[in-house]
Protein backbone atom coordinates (compact mmCIF):
# COMPACT_ATOMS: atom_id res chain seq x y z
CA UNK A 1 0.00 0.00 0.00
CA UNK A 2 1.31 3.45 -0.70
CA UNK A 3 0.65 6.06 1.96
CA UNK A 4 -0.64 9.17 0.24
CA UNK A 5 -1.31 11.29 3.27
CA UNK A 6 -1.16 11.04 7.02
CA UNK A 7 -4.09 13.15 8.12
CA UNK A 8 -4.89 14.10 11.68
CA UNK A 9 -7.28 11.20 12.18
CA UNK A 10 -6.74 8.91 9.24
CA UNK A 11 -4.15 7.46 6.92
CA UNK A 12 -4.95 7.81 3.24
CA UNK A 13 -3.65 5.26 0.79
CA UNK A 14 -3.61 5.40 -2.96
CA UNK A 15 -4.26 1.95 -4.40
CA UNK A 16 -5.03 0.28 -7.69
CA UNK A 17 -8.77 -0.30 -8.05
CA UNK A 18 -8.47 -4.08 -8.03
CA UNK A 19 -6.40 -4.16 -4.88
CA UNK A 20 -8.68 -1.81 -2.98
CA UNK A 21 -11.92 -3.56 -3.89
CA UNK A 22 -10.91 -7.10 -4.83
CA UNK A 23 -12.68 -6.87 -8.14
CA UNK A 24 -11.70 -5.83 -11.61
CA UNK A 25 -11.53 -2.15 -12.40
CA UNK A 26 -9.39 0.63 -13.77
CA UNK A 27 -7.46 3.43 -12.17
CA UNK A 28 -6.60 4.26 -8.61
CA UNK A 29 -8.71 4.68 -5.51
CA UNK A 30 -8.23 6.32 -2.16
CA UNK A 31 -8.56 4.21 0.97
CA UNK A 32 -9.17 6.28 4.07
CA UNK A 33 -8.39 4.30 7.18
CA UNK A 34 -9.27 5.84 10.52
CA UNK A 35 -6.54 4.81 12.88
CA UNK A 36 -6.88 4.04 16.53
CA UNK A 37 -5.54 6.65 18.94
CA UNK A 38 -3.85 5.28 22.00
CA UNK A 39 -4.39 8.45 23.96
CA UNK A 40 -8.13 8.06 24.27
CA UNK A 41 -10.11 5.42 26.08
CA UNK A 42 -11.08 2.48 23.79
CA UNK A 43 -14.82 3.18 24.13
CA UNK A 44 -14.45 6.71 22.79
CA UNK A 45 -11.94 5.61 20.19
CA UNK A 46 -14.16 2.91 18.67
CA UNK A 47 -17.30 4.95 18.86
CA UNK A 48 -15.74 7.97 17.15
CA UNK A 49 -14.07 6.01 14.39
CA UNK A 50 -17.08 3.92 13.59
CA UNK A 51 -19.64 6.69 13.65
CA UNK A 52 -17.46 9.07 11.68
CA UNK A 53 -16.76 6.45 9.01
CA UNK A 54 -20.43 5.63 8.52
CA UNK A 55 -21.65 9.19 8.67
CA UNK A 56 -18.95 10.46 6.36
CA UNK A 57 -20.00 8.05 3.62
CA UNK A 58 -23.58 9.16 3.88
CA UNK A 59 -22.67 12.85 3.89
CA UNK A 60 -20.50 12.42 0.80
CA UNK A 61 -23.37 11.09 -1.23
CA UNK A 62 -25.93 13.57 0.06
CA UNK A 63 -23.54 16.42 -0.67
CA UNK A 64 -23.15 15.16 -4.21
CA UNK A 65 -26.93 15.08 -4.51
CA UNK A 66 -26.92 18.75 -3.48
CA UNK A 67 -24.57 19.49 -6.42
CA UNK A 68 -21.43 19.79 -4.36
CA UNK A 69 -18.63 17.79 -5.97
CA UNK A 70 -17.41 14.97 -3.69
CA UNK A 71 -15.60 11.71 -4.42
CA UNK A 72 -17.72 8.66 -5.28
CA UNK A 73 -17.77 6.21 -2.39
CA UNK A 74 -17.17 2.58 -3.36
CA UNK A 75 -17.10 0.86 -0.03
CA UNK A 76 -17.84 1.50 3.63
CA UNK A 77 -16.13 -0.88 6.02
CA UNK A 78 -17.41 -0.21 9.54
CA UNK A 79 -15.37 -2.98 11.08
CA UNK A 80 -12.05 -2.09 9.49
CA UNK A 81 -12.94 1.61 9.77
CA UNK A 82 -12.19 2.13 6.09
CA UNK A 83 -13.75 4.14 3.31
CA UNK A 84 -12.86 3.39 -0.29
CA UNK A 85 -13.42 6.32 -2.64
CA UNK A 86 -12.64 7.90 -5.95
CA UNK A 87 -9.25 9.61 -6.24
CA UNK A 88 -9.63 13.28 -7.08
CA UNK A 89 -6.80 14.63 -9.13
CA UNK A 90 -6.07 18.27 -8.44
CA UNK A 91 -4.49 20.65 -6.00
CA UNK A 92 -5.43 21.49 -2.45
CA UNK A 93 -6.99 24.96 -2.37
CA UNK A 94 -4.66 25.59 0.58
CA UNK A 95 -1.68 25.45 -1.75
CA UNK A 96 -3.03 27.66 -4.51
CA UNK A 97 -5.22 30.30 -2.87
CA UNK A 98 -2.46 32.78 -2.00
CA UNK A 99 -0.81 32.45 -5.39
CA UNK A 100 -3.82 33.19 -7.57
CA UNK A 101 -4.52 36.55 -9.14
CA UNK A 102 -6.97 38.68 -7.23
CA UNK A 103 -9.75 37.97 -9.70
CA UNK A 104 -9.15 34.25 -9.85
CA UNK A 105 -9.07 34.14 -6.07
CA UNK A 106 -12.33 36.01 -5.85
CA UNK A 107 -14.00 33.63 -8.30
CA UNK A 108 -12.69 30.58 -6.48
CA UNK A 109 -13.84 31.88 -3.11
CA UNK A 110 -17.25 32.75 -4.48
CA UNK A 111 -17.59 29.21 -5.79
CA UNK A 112 -16.57 27.85 -2.39
CA UNK A 113 -19.15 30.10 -0.74
CA UNK A 114 -21.81 28.88 -3.15
CA UNK A 115 -21.00 25.26 -2.40
CA UNK A 116 -21.13 25.83 1.32
CA UNK A 117 -24.56 27.39 0.82
CA UNK A 118 -25.70 24.33 -1.16
CA UNK A 119 -24.62 22.05 1.66
CA UNK A 120 -26.41 24.18 4.19
CA UNK A 121 -29.58 24.29 2.17
CA UNK A 122 -29.45 20.51 2.02
CA UNK A 123 -29.32 20.44 5.82
CA UNK A 124 -25.65 19.48 5.95
CA UNK A 125 -22.79 21.18 7.73
CA UNK A 126 -19.29 20.12 6.76
CA UNK A 127 -17.73 20.54 10.19
CA UNK A 128 -14.16 21.11 9.03
CA UNK A 129 -14.16 23.68 6.27
CA UNK A 130 -10.47 24.30 5.78
CA UNK A 131 -8.74 24.87 2.47
CA UNK A 132 -6.88 21.57 2.80
CA UNK A 133 -10.20 19.82 2.51
CA UNK A 134 -10.97 21.40 -0.85
CA UNK A 135 -9.43 20.10 -4.05
CA UNK A 136 -9.33 22.26 -7.15
CA UNK A 137 -9.35 20.22 -10.35
CA UNK A 138 -7.99 21.18 -13.73
CA UNK A 139 -11.52 21.91 -15.00
CA UNK A 140 -12.00 24.36 -12.17
CA UNK A 141 -14.31 22.22 -10.06
CA UNK A 142 -13.86 22.32 -6.30
CA UNK A 143 -14.28 18.96 -4.56
CA UNK A 144 -15.06 18.96 -0.85
CA UNK A 145 -13.49 16.07 1.07
CA UNK A 146 -13.26 15.00 4.70
CA UNK A 147 -16.79 15.08 6.04
CA UNK A 148 -15.59 13.23 9.13
CA UNK A 149 -16.83 15.99 11.41
CA UNK A 150 -19.92 16.78 9.39
CA UNK A 151 -23.50 16.41 10.46
CA UNK A 152 -27.09 16.81 9.44
CA UNK A 153 -27.99 20.00 11.18
CA UNK A 154 -30.15 22.74 9.70
CA UNK A 155 -29.84 25.10 12.67
CA UNK A 156 -28.64 28.66 12.40
CA UNK A 157 -26.00 27.95 15.01
CA UNK A 158 -24.51 25.00 13.13
CA UNK A 159 -24.39 26.95 9.90
CA UNK A 160 -22.82 29.92 11.66
CA UNK A 161 -20.15 27.72 13.22
CA UNK A 162 -19.45 26.12 9.84
CA UNK A 163 -18.80 29.48 8.19
CA UNK A 164 -16.91 30.68 11.24
CA UNK A 165 -14.57 27.70 10.87
CA UNK A 166 -13.89 28.61 7.27
CA UNK A 167 -13.14 32.16 8.30
CA UNK A 168 -10.81 30.90 11.02
CA UNK A 169 -8.99 28.73 8.50
CA UNK A 170 -8.57 31.74 6.25
CA UNK A 171 -7.22 33.73 9.18
CA UNK A 172 -4.71 31.16 10.35
CA UNK A 173 -3.53 29.84 6.99
CA UNK A 174 -4.23 32.60 4.46
CA UNK A 175 -3.66 35.61 6.66
CA UNK A 176 -2.38 37.69 3.75
CA UNK A 177 -5.66 37.50 1.86
CA UNK A 178 -8.15 36.77 4.63
CA UNK A 179 -10.41 39.75 4.18
CA UNK A 180 -10.88 39.67 0.43
CA UNK A 181 -11.19 35.88 0.44
CA UNK A 182 -13.81 35.86 3.17
CA UNK A 183 -15.75 38.66 1.52
CA UNK A 184 -15.91 36.64 -1.69
CA UNK A 185 -16.98 33.53 0.20
CA UNK A 186 -19.83 35.49 1.75
CA UNK A 187 -20.83 36.96 -1.60
CA UNK A 188 -21.10 33.48 -3.10
CA UNK A 189 -22.87 32.18 -0.05
CA UNK A 190 -25.44 34.96 -0.11
CA UNK A 191 -26.13 34.55 -3.79
CA UNK A 192 -26.71 30.82 -3.53
CA UNK A 193 -28.43 30.66 -0.16
CA UNK A 194 -30.83 33.48 -0.89
CA UNK A 195 -33.11 34.68 1.86
CA UNK A 196 -31.84 33.94 5.33
CA UNK A 197 -28.16 34.22 4.44
CA UNK A 198 -27.95 37.50 6.33
CA UNK A 199 -29.06 35.77 9.51
CA UNK A 200 -26.34 33.14 9.17
CA UNK A 201 -23.70 35.79 8.60
CA UNK A 202 -24.90 37.72 11.61
CA UNK A 203 -24.62 34.55 13.66
CA UNK A 204 -20.98 34.19 12.60
CA UNK A 205 -20.28 37.60 14.12
CA UNK A 206 -22.04 36.60 17.32
CA UNK A 207 -20.00 33.42 17.55
CA UNK A 208 -16.82 35.44 17.19
CA UNK A 209 -17.66 37.37 20.32
CA UNK A 210 -18.19 34.25 22.40
CA UNK A 211 -15.69 31.65 23.50
CA UNK A 212 -13.15 34.38 23.87
CA UNK A 213 -13.21 35.82 27.29
CA UNK A 214 -16.91 36.41 27.32
CA UNK A 215 -17.41 32.95 28.75
CA UNK A 216 -15.45 34.01 31.77
CA UNK A 217 -17.91 36.77 32.55
CA UNK A 218 -20.86 34.52 31.88
CA UNK A 219 -19.71 32.06 34.47
CA UNK A 220 -20.26 34.69 37.16
CA UNK A 221 -23.91 33.99 36.90
CA UNK A 222 -23.82 30.24 37.00
Amino acid at each position, binding site marked *: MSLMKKG*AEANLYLEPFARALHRAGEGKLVVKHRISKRY*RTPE*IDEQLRESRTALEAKLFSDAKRASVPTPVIYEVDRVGMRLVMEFIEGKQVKLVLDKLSRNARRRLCELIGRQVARLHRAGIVHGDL*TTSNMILTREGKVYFVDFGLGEYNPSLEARG*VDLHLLKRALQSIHFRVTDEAYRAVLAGYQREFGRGAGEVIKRVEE*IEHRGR*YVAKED*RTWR
Partner: protein
Amino acid sequence: MICLGIESTAHTFGIGIVSDKGHILANVSSIYVPERGGIHPREAAQHHAAVAKKTLERALAKAKVRINEVNLVSFAAGPGLGPALRTGATAARAISSFFNIPLLAVNHCVSHVEIGRLATGAKDPVTLYVSGGNTQVIAFEAGRYRVFGETLDIPVGNCLDVFAREVGLPSPGGPQVERLARKGKHYIALPYVVKGMDLSFSGLMTEAVRKHRAGGDLYDLCHSLQETAFAALVEVTERAVAHTEKKEVMLTGGVAANKRLREMLRLMAGEHEARFFVPSMGLCQDNGPMIAWTGILAYKHGVRQRLEDTVVNQRWRVDEVNIPWR
Protein backbone atom coordinates in the same frame (compact mmCIF):
# COMPACT_ATOMS: atom_id res chain seq x y z
CA MET B 1 17.88 44.67 33.64
CA ILE B 2 15.13 43.80 36.11
CA CYS B 3 11.42 43.78 35.37
CA LEU B 4 8.51 43.71 37.77
CA GLY B 5 5.40 42.14 36.25
CA ILE B 6 1.83 42.32 37.53
CA GLU B 7 -0.79 39.70 36.75
CA SER B 8 -4.43 40.39 37.63
CA THR B 9 -6.64 39.09 34.83
CA ALA B 10 -8.88 36.85 36.95
CA HIS B 11 -8.56 35.10 40.35
CA THR B 12 -4.86 35.68 40.83
CA PHE B 13 -3.08 38.84 41.84
CA GLY B 14 0.54 37.99 41.18
CA ILE B 15 3.83 39.85 41.13
CA GLY B 16 6.92 38.48 39.48
CA ILE B 17 10.43 39.86 39.40
CA VAL B 18 12.60 38.57 36.59
CA SER B 19 16.04 39.50 35.23
CA ASP B 20 16.86 39.82 31.56
CA LYS B 21 18.97 36.66 31.92
CA GLY B 22 15.68 34.87 32.57
CA HIS B 23 16.23 34.35 36.28
CA ILE B 24 12.99 34.35 38.23
CA LEU B 25 13.80 36.28 41.40
CA ALA B 26 10.29 36.27 42.84
CA ASN B 27 6.92 34.68 42.09
CA VAL B 28 4.42 35.82 44.69
CA SER B 29 0.68 35.72 44.44
CA SER B 30 -2.58 35.94 46.28
CA ILE B 31 -5.66 34.15 44.96
CA TYR B 32 -9.20 35.37 45.33
CA VAL B 33 -11.53 32.55 46.35
CA PRO B 34 -15.22 33.34 45.87
CA GLU B 35 -17.32 32.44 48.88
CA ARG B 36 -19.79 30.65 46.67
CA GLY B 37 -20.43 30.19 42.98
CA GLY B 38 -18.17 31.44 40.24
CA ILE B 39 -15.94 34.46 40.07
CA HIS B 40 -17.45 37.89 40.74
CA PRO B 41 -15.37 40.38 38.77
CA ARG B 42 -15.87 43.27 41.16
CA GLU B 43 -15.10 41.18 44.25
CA ALA B 44 -11.98 39.88 42.53
CA ALA B 45 -10.91 43.47 41.86
CA GLN B 46 -11.50 44.41 45.50
CA HIS B 47 -9.44 41.45 46.61
CA HIS B 48 -6.60 42.43 44.29
CA ALA B 49 -6.63 46.04 45.48
CA ALA B 50 -6.58 44.90 49.09
CA VAL B 51 -3.56 42.61 48.67
CA ALA B 52 -1.57 44.69 46.17
CA LYS B 53 0.73 46.50 48.59
CA LYS B 54 1.47 43.41 50.68
CA THR B 55 2.14 41.29 47.59
CA LEU B 56 4.52 43.92 46.22
CA GLU B 57 6.45 44.07 49.49
CA ARG B 58 6.69 40.28 49.66
CA ALA B 59 7.93 40.08 46.09
CA LEU B 60 10.62 42.71 46.59
CA ALA B 61 11.74 41.03 49.81
CA LYS B 62 11.81 37.62 48.15
CA ALA B 63 13.86 38.93 45.23
CA LYS B 64 16.11 40.98 47.52
CA VAL B 65 15.59 43.88 45.16
CA ARG B 66 14.85 47.49 46.04
CA ILE B 67 12.20 49.23 43.98
CA ASN B 68 14.74 51.71 42.57
CA GLU B 69 16.67 48.77 41.11
CA VAL B 70 13.69 47.86 38.94
CA ASN B 71 14.17 49.00 35.32
CA LEU B 72 10.80 48.10 33.87
CA VAL B 73 7.23 47.54 35.02
CA SER B 74 4.82 45.40 32.98
CA PHE B 75 1.26 44.31 33.56
CA ALA B 76 -1.29 42.01 31.93
CA ALA B 77 -3.65 44.27 29.98
CA GLY B 78 -5.91 41.44 28.79
CA PRO B 79 -7.69 39.27 28.05
CA GLY B 80 -9.48 39.11 31.36
CA LEU B 81 -12.14 40.59 33.57
CA GLY B 82 -12.45 44.36 33.29
CA PRO B 83 -12.46 45.29 36.98
CA ALA B 84 -9.63 42.88 37.82
CA LEU B 85 -7.55 44.10 34.89
CA ARG B 86 -8.02 47.72 35.88
CA THR B 87 -6.75 47.06 39.40
CA GLY B 88 -3.52 45.60 38.05
CA ALA B 89 -3.17 48.44 35.56
CA THR B 90 -3.66 51.04 38.27
CA ALA B 91 -1.03 49.44 40.48
CA ALA B 92 1.43 49.23 37.59
CA ARG B 93 0.86 52.84 36.56
CA ALA B 94 1.28 54.04 40.12
CA ILE B 95 4.64 52.27 40.54
CA SER B 96 5.77 53.38 37.11
CA SER B 97 4.99 57.05 37.51
CA PHE B 98 5.96 57.35 41.18
CA PHE B 99 9.39 55.79 40.65
CA ASN B 100 9.71 56.96 37.06
CA ILE B 101 10.12 53.46 35.57
CA PRO B 102 9.09 52.64 31.97
CA LEU B 103 5.75 50.80 31.69
CA LEU B 104 4.59 48.11 29.24
CA ALA B 105 1.18 46.47 28.80
CA VAL B 106 1.53 42.82 27.77
CA ASN B 107 -0.85 40.08 26.63
CA HIS B 108 -1.77 37.41 29.18
CA CYS B 109 -1.99 34.47 26.75
CA VAL B 110 1.26 35.34 24.97
CA SER B 111 2.88 35.49 28.41
CA HIS B 112 1.76 31.96 29.27
CA VAL B 113 3.52 30.69 26.17
CA GLU B 114 6.65 32.80 26.69
CA ILE B 115 7.23 31.78 30.30
CA GLY B 116 6.65 28.17 29.25
CA ARG B 117 9.30 28.47 26.57
CA LEU B 118 11.71 30.04 29.07
CA ALA B 119 11.03 27.44 31.76
CA THR B 120 11.07 24.30 29.62
CA GLY B 121 13.43 25.18 26.81
CA ALA B 122 10.77 24.47 24.20
CA LYS B 123 11.57 26.53 21.10
CA ASP B 124 8.52 26.49 18.91
CA PRO B 125 5.73 24.47 20.49
CA VAL B 126 2.08 23.95 19.71
CA THR B 127 0.64 25.07 23.05
CA LEU B 128 -2.53 23.84 24.69
CA TYR B 129 -3.49 26.52 27.18
CA VAL B 130 -6.28 25.35 29.48
CA SER B 131 -7.56 27.10 32.57
CA GLY B 132 -10.76 28.22 34.21
CA GLY B 133 -10.99 31.17 31.85
CA ASN B 134 -9.28 30.04 28.65
CA THR B 135 -9.12 27.08 26.32
CA GLN B 136 -6.90 27.66 23.32
CA VAL B 137 -4.48 25.91 21.03
CA ILE B 138 -1.80 28.44 20.11
CA ALA B 139 1.12 28.20 17.70
CA PHE B 140 3.53 30.68 16.17
CA GLU B 141 3.05 31.17 12.43
CA ALA B 142 4.28 34.00 10.19
CA GLY B 143 5.30 36.49 12.83
CA ARG B 144 2.45 36.06 15.27
CA TYR B 145 0.91 33.67 17.72
CA ARG B 146 -2.21 32.29 16.13
CA VAL B 147 -5.17 30.50 17.59
CA PHE B 148 -5.55 27.08 15.99
CA GLY B 149 -8.48 26.02 18.10
CA GLU B 150 -10.54 27.34 20.96
CA THR B 151 -13.74 26.77 22.82
CA LEU B 152 -16.93 28.00 21.25
CA ASP B 153 -18.61 28.28 24.64
CA ILE B 154 -17.18 27.58 28.12
CA PRO B 155 -13.51 26.90 28.96
CA VAL B 156 -12.65 23.36 30.01
CA GLY B 157 -11.63 24.33 33.57
CA ASN B 158 -14.99 26.01 33.94
CA CYS B 159 -16.71 22.85 32.69
CA LEU B 160 -15.00 20.81 35.43
CA ASP B 161 -15.63 23.46 38.09
CA VAL B 162 -19.32 23.87 37.33
CA PHE B 163 -19.87 20.11 37.15
CA ALA B 164 -18.14 19.68 40.50
CA ARG B 165 -20.23 22.42 42.06
CA GLU B 166 -23.47 20.98 40.70
CA VAL B 167 -22.73 17.53 42.12
CA GLY B 168 -21.69 18.95 45.49
CA LEU B 169 -17.89 18.71 45.33
CA PRO B 170 -15.74 21.43 46.89
CA SER B 171 -14.09 24.15 44.82
CA PRO B 172 -11.95 24.25 42.72
CA GLY B 173 -13.54 21.35 40.93
CA GLY B 174 -10.73 20.24 38.62
CA PRO B 175 -8.60 18.48 41.25
CA GLN B 176 -11.72 16.89 42.80
CA VAL B 177 -12.87 15.48 39.50
CA GLU B 178 -9.37 14.11 38.88
CA ARG B 179 -9.28 12.45 42.30
CA LEU B 180 -12.66 10.73 41.88
CA ALA B 181 -11.99 9.82 38.26
CA ARG B 182 -9.19 7.51 39.37
CA LYS B 183 -11.82 5.30 40.97
CA GLY B 184 -14.10 5.33 37.95
CA LYS B 185 -14.32 2.00 36.15
CA HIS B 186 -16.94 2.30 33.45
CA TYR B 187 -17.11 4.76 30.67
CA ILE B 188 -20.51 6.42 30.43
CA ALA B 189 -21.12 7.88 26.98
CA LEU B 190 -21.18 11.70 27.02
CA PRO B 191 -21.42 14.22 24.17
CA TYR B 192 -18.08 14.60 22.43
CA VAL B 193 -17.98 17.85 20.47
CA VAL B 194 -15.18 18.84 18.12
CA LYS B 195 -16.05 21.26 15.35
CA GLY B 196 -13.16 21.53 12.98
CA MET B 197 -10.43 22.97 15.15
CA ASP B 198 -12.82 24.24 17.77
CA LEU B 199 -14.39 22.76 20.86
CA SER B 200 -17.55 22.97 22.90
CA PHE B 201 -18.00 21.88 26.51
CA SER B 202 -21.33 23.23 27.66
CA GLY B 203 -23.39 20.31 26.33
CA LEU B 204 -20.95 17.88 27.91
CA MET B 205 -21.19 19.62 31.27
CA THR B 206 -25.00 19.73 31.23
CA GLU B 207 -25.29 16.08 30.26
CA ALA B 208 -22.84 14.93 32.92
CA VAL B 209 -24.84 16.82 35.56
CA ARG B 210 -28.08 15.33 34.21
CA LYS B 211 -26.68 11.79 34.33
CA HIS B 212 -25.62 12.36 37.93
CA ARG B 213 -29.11 13.51 38.88
CA ALA B 214 -30.49 10.43 37.14
CA GLY B 215 -28.44 8.27 39.49
CA GLY B 216 -25.22 7.80 37.54
CA ASP B 217 -22.21 6.72 39.57
CA LEU B 218 -20.14 9.77 40.49
CA TYR B 219 -16.77 8.02 40.09
CA ASP B 220 -17.72 6.75 36.65
CA LEU B 221 -19.05 10.15 35.67
CA CYS B 222 -15.88 11.96 36.74
CA HIS B 223 -13.84 9.44 34.77
CA SER B 224 -16.09 9.80 31.73
CA LEU B 225 -16.18 13.59 31.92
CA GLN B 226 -12.39 13.75 31.95
CA GLU B 227 -11.95 11.17 29.23
CA THR B 228 -14.43 12.93 26.95
CA ALA B 229 -13.27 16.50 27.53
CA PHE B 230 -9.58 15.63 27.32
CA ALA B 231 -9.91 13.42 24.24
CA ALA B 232 -11.46 16.41 22.48
CA LEU B 233 -8.67 18.74 23.69
CA VAL B 234 -6.00 16.33 22.53
CA GLU B 235 -7.69 15.76 19.18
CA VAL B 236 -7.73 19.49 18.45
CA THR B 237 -4.12 19.87 19.59
CA GLU B 238 -3.22 16.94 17.36
CA ARG B 239 -4.86 18.63 14.41
CA ALA B 240 -2.71 21.71 15.00
CA VAL B 241 0.40 19.53 15.25
CA ALA B 242 -0.47 17.71 12.03
CA HIS B 243 -1.21 20.98 10.30
CA THR B 244 1.83 22.99 11.44
CA GLU B 245 4.20 19.98 11.48
CA LYS B 246 5.82 21.35 14.62
CA LYS B 247 7.90 18.97 16.70
CA GLU B 248 7.04 20.27 20.16
CA VAL B 249 3.87 20.23 22.24
CA MET B 250 3.44 22.27 25.41
CA LEU B 251 0.70 22.17 28.03
CA THR B 252 0.00 25.12 30.31
CA GLY B 253 -2.73 26.80 32.40
CA GLY B 254 -4.24 25.58 35.68
CA VAL B 255 -5.71 22.41 34.15
CA ALA B 256 -2.14 21.36 33.27
CA ALA B 257 -2.00 19.98 36.82
CA ASN B 258 -4.07 17.05 35.62
CA LYS B 259 -2.04 13.86 35.30
CA ARG B 260 -4.40 12.15 32.89
CA LEU B 261 -4.36 15.10 30.49
CA ARG B 262 -0.56 15.10 30.61
CA GLU B 263 -0.43 11.40 29.86
CA MET B 264 -2.79 11.74 26.90
CA LEU B 265 -0.85 14.62 25.39
CA ARG B 266 2.43 12.81 25.88
CA LEU B 267 1.07 9.80 23.98
CA MET B 268 -0.21 12.01 21.17
CA ALA B 269 3.07 13.91 20.93
CA GLY B 270 4.94 10.62 20.78
CA GLU B 271 2.88 9.46 17.83
CA HIS B 272 3.98 12.57 15.95
CA GLU B 273 7.59 12.30 17.11
CA ALA B 274 7.17 15.56 18.96
CA ARG B 275 8.65 16.40 22.36
CA PHE B 276 6.28 17.18 25.18
CA PHE B 277 6.74 19.94 27.78
CA VAL B 278 4.93 21.15 30.89
CA PRO B 279 6.31 24.05 32.96
CA SER B 280 6.26 23.72 36.76
CA MET B 281 2.78 24.37 38.14
CA GLY B 282 3.82 27.73 39.62
CA LEU B 283 4.42 28.89 36.07
CA CYS B 284 1.40 27.13 34.53
CA GLN B 285 -1.12 28.91 36.71
CA ASP B 286 -1.59 32.63 36.35
CA ASN B 287 1.61 34.20 37.67
CA GLY B 288 3.62 37.42 37.78
CA PRO B 289 6.91 36.17 36.27
CA MET B 290 5.26 35.43 32.92
CA ILE B 291 4.18 39.06 32.69
CA ALA B 292 7.61 40.31 33.74
CA TRP B 293 9.44 38.06 31.27
CA THR B 294 7.23 39.05 28.36
CA GLY B 295 7.81 42.69 29.35
CA ILE B 296 11.55 42.10 29.10
CA LEU B 297 11.27 40.41 25.71
CA ALA B 298 9.19 43.27 24.34
CA TYR B 299 11.33 46.03 25.84
CA LYS B 300 14.59 44.51 24.61
CA HIS B 301 13.14 44.34 21.13
CA GLY B 302 12.25 47.97 21.02
CA VAL B 303 8.64 47.99 22.15
CA ARG B 304 7.83 51.28 23.90
CA GLN B 305 4.42 52.54 24.97
CA ARG B 306 3.18 55.88 26.15
CA LEU B 307 1.03 55.86 29.24
CA GLU B 308 -2.09 56.42 27.15
CA ASP B 309 -1.27 53.30 25.07
CA THR B 310 -1.36 51.08 28.10
CA VAL B 311 -5.12 50.61 28.24
CA VAL B 312 -6.71 47.35 29.29
CA ASN B 313 -8.50 45.25 26.69
CA GLN B 314 -10.80 42.52 28.03
CA ARG B 315 -10.83 40.70 24.70
CA TRP B 316 -7.27 41.17 23.56
CA ARG B 317 -6.52 38.26 21.25
CA VAL B 318 -3.08 36.69 20.87
CA ASP B 319 -3.12 37.16 17.11
CA GLU B 320 -3.41 40.92 17.58
CA VAL B 321 -0.04 41.14 19.31
CA ASN B 322 3.18 42.02 17.49
CA ILE B 323 5.99 39.65 18.44
CA PRO B 324 9.25 41.36 17.44
CA TRP B 325 11.37 38.97 19.51
CA ARG B 326 10.68 35.91 17.38
